[in-house]
């Protein structure tokens, strides 16, 4: 998994951020509109938005005095690609191979 895919996983691992994604999937919105349904400070919502922006999922544009947020679903396709069965299948196989040798190594290193 690449670090950019990982940052997308991190971004969507939080229920607030997933709710923000759902909101922006309906269309662009102002920061204050996005923050409105959440029982948290604007500052806390801004932190979540930063995570989404860093993952490339949300883009911010200035319209006059307002910041307008737009969803960019492209990075999600990368995640879906990763999640497709064949890639998961091989990752699972390599996880197992790695675990096998890690266990073997630990056994050897254990003092008798």
């Amino acid at each position, binding site marked *: *998994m690449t670090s950019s895919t*990982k940052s997308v*996983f*991190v971004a*969507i*691992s939080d229920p607030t951020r*997933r709710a923000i994604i759902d909101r922006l999937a309906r269309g662009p919105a102002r920061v204050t509109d996005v923050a409105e349904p959440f029982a948290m400070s604007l500052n806390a919502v801004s932190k979540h938005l930063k995570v989404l922006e860093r993952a490339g999922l949300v883009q911010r544009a200035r319209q006059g005095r307002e910041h307008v947020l737009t969803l960019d679903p492209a990075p999600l396709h990368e*995640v*879906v*690609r990763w*999640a*497709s*069965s*064949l*890639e998961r*299948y*091989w*990752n699972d*196989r*390599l*996880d*197992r*191979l*790695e*675990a*096998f*040798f*890690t266990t*073997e*190594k630990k056994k050897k290193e254990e003092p008798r």
Partner: protein
Amino acid sequence: MNVSIKTTDLTVSRTIPAPPERVYDVWLDHTSPGGPWHGAKKVILDARVDGLFYHAMEWEGTTWPHFGRFLALERGRRIEHTWMSPATKGLESVVTITLEPRGNETLLSLRHSGVPDDELGRQHQQGWTWITDAVADLLGKM
């Protein structure tokens, strides 16, 4: 054959804490729990160039038969075989495993080429459900 199905490649790599020869031997040993064939309902494996393999895997409640032919076998360096399964829709995809020494460890790169691209598209919806359910689990592994 003129193949009209759009295909794609995927690459996964991992550093394995063992020398390339050991990784090679375990990969081809279907009785080893570290090998990719382990856990299959049935395995037939003739690990020589032009040797054939068959294995039936249980994957998310479905049995997936896999067939292939070994194209290259170089101990401690490379394993290459064809791969046909329901996911390749009758196309002969190719799996290449390259082993490179990294100190006492091995950098394993696995490239699976010629995989039909539509499989990925078809799984978008399933992928989404799976993602939200499994993200917490995955993050533990990162």
